[in-house]
């Protein structure tokens, strides 16, 4: 009798403990939402990857301050992909299959996003990819269903320059670009648009990444007397190109780059030689997008330096994902996807609206011109802040 009683008591205690433990575990399983990503913290993209990282971090900090997502705190799990696509692929597999994160955000740059998208599609995980600007990633067959673009595509970077040029009646264009994914797309977009507007592309050449001597290239361009020089560059090649244009006295009537946006470095580096140059940017602190000024101040206070557009895109991308989850009321990929496809909103970064492939439709590139040490937005017309200084005066007359 006693033995049975003891046995029954033991059984009851065991069951009770098990029940308590499992509920405890279940409560823990309700723990933080883990958002995973691999970012380029070292390697060629190190600086920009870091900015994107900070953008994600600020977004999550603000989310948590407002009570988190779906009532749970959000945690960021980040690995370094060393700016290499194969590493990114492996790390996303790790995040999804081993770390079992609840969701993923995109990495830095188009090549890495392209490689990684194969993984996220395989596991049907929604991935907002804030720093991928290449159309082909979103239009590849068979169509990818779970990736979402935030920034404007590369092809549009030089659109403002070409548009202004054609409105001013200029006829000839020379296009140069670095031989990498983004620059090639930007150059191709510029060439396409120029031809559509009836302008003549008199010169087009690519240069290898890391090239610093443009003498021969510029000598050739000078001989064509092109009205417009459109350069799809990053930062250091833009600096070298500009300096050498001055040295060789190459004087187009308009000169635009795609790498001249980062204040204050571009201007600090080139000083007066940066005047009149047109640049393109995905975002500027001065644009009156909702929450932009607040974001700028918080970011500066948190990270002790000004955000670049990569920071803002990361921030906005994460916020957009959070919005999608909120509207879906769940983390389930298909529900979130549905919401993100429908969503039309404006963040500190600008407009967001995608087509059925997740390709960004609404976000606008902004073209500015360096005028008297300031960046003045000159295109598109609805965001203009000042008049264009046209034509660009020859070097020896400045």
């Amino acid at each position, binding site marked *: 009798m006693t033995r049975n009683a003891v046995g029954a008591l033991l059984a009851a205690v065991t069951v009770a403990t098990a029940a308590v433990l499992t509920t405890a575990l279940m409560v823990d399983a309700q723990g933080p939402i883990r958002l995973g990503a691999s970012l380029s913290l*070292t390697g*060629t993209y*190190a*600086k920009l990857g*870091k900015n994107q990282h900070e953008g994600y971090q600020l977004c999550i900090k603000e989310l948590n301050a407002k009570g988190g997502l779906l009532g749970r705190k959000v945690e960021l799990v980040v690995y370094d992909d060393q700016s290499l696509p194969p590493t990114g692929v492996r790390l996303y597999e790790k995040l999804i299959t081993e770390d079992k994160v609840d969701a993923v955000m995109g990495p830095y740059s188009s090549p890495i996003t392209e490689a990684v998208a194969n993984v996220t599609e395989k596991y049907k995980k929604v991935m907002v990819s804030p720093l991928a600007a290449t159309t082909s990633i979103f239009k590849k067959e068979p169509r990818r269903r779970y990736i979402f673009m935030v920034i404007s595509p590369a092809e549009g970077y030089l659109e403002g320059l070409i548009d202004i040029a054609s409105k001013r009646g200029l006829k000839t264009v020379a296009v140069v670009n670095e*031989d990498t994914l983004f620059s090639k797309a930007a150059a191709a977009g510029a060439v396409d648009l120029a031809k559509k507007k009836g302008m003549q*592309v*008199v*010169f*087009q*050449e*690519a*240069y*290898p990444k*890391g*090239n*610093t*001597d*443009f*003498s*021969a*290239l510029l*000598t*050739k361009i000078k*001989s*064509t007397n092109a009205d417009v020089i459109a350069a799809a560059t990053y*930062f*250091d090649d833009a*600096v*070298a190109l500009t*300096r*050498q244009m*001055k*040295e*060789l*006295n190459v004087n187009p009537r308009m000169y635009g780059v795609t790498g001249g946006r980062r204040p204050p*470095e571009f201007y*600090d*580096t*080139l*000083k007066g*030689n940066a005047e009149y140059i047109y640049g393109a940017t995905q975002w500027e602190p001065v644009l009156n997008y909702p929450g932009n000024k607040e974001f700028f101040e918080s970011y500066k206070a948190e990270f002790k330096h000004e955000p670049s557009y990569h920071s803002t895109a990361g921030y906005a991308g994460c916020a957009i994902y959070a919005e999608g989850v909120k509207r879906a009321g769940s983390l389930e990929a298909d529900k979130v996807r549905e919401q993100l496809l429908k969503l039309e909103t404006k963040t500190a970064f600008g407009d967001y609206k995608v087509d059925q492939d997740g390709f960004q439709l609404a976000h606008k590139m902004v073209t500015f011109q360096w005028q008297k040490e300031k960046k003045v937005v000159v295109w598109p017309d609805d965001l203009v802040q000042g008049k264009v200084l046209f034509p660009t005066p020859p*070097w020896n007359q400045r």
Partner: protein
Amino acid sequence: MNVVITPAMVGQVVISGLLSGVLYGMVALGLALIFGVMRIINVAHGPLLMLGAYTTFFFYSTWGLNPYLTVPLSMLVLFGVGWLLERTLVFRVVDAPELSSLLLTFGISIALVNGAQLAFTSDLRAVEYLTGSWMVGPFALSKSRVIAFVFAGGLTAAAFLFLSYTRLGKAIRATSQSREVAMVCGIDVGAIHRLTFGLASALAAAGGALIAVIVAIQPEMGQIWTFKSFLVIVLGGAGNYPGALLGGMLLGLVEQLASLFLTTQLSEVVAYVLLVLVLLVRPTGLLGGRQT
């Protein structure tokens, strides 16, 4: 598109090529010295140049020093760094097969680059000092490159004078020709090795200091200089010191001419094809060097 190439254009490009060429030659001379004296292929040569550029940037931005005045300073700093590297690490692989020195210097190279990324961040820096060019007839001579040309030429000439006429210089050449005989003659070969490595680093630093006003400074900027220095040495002949200078000018010319007549993208291919061809056809270099 077909751009018509005029003689004036060719002339312009030849000038640019020679201006860069002398710079290549000076930097490659450092590498040639290390290879000639110690039989070591120094893959860390580019990063040493990068450190020279950062040193110049540091002096320029903290104390507003004229970047050209910082050239001797950068050289001094990197001389010390090179000396130290030899003393602690490199001396161990001097007699080893080339695999050891290749790997060791590669390890040093990535440690230096990553160290620079941590210390200086990957933010691009630049020294804005002298822009524009002097016009000579129809040709534009970039001011910063001309000054670099003058400095590089001067430093290379000084190096040759040092090697030919001073006791230390002759000791270096002696060790380069035959280490055993040099030892027998009473030369402290270990000290010569440290001196050589320091000197080579100083030459690389001078290169870095001079291009600090021309290009953007970032931790990975040196890698391409390592490759180009290899190319120059192959062209000029290993162990052939004047060959390094001539090889440099040849490379500069080939690059610019290929860029003019073909495309800038192809000029990269041409340079490497040239490397492989010269190695296959005349491994001792176009100007004759040493077999091994």
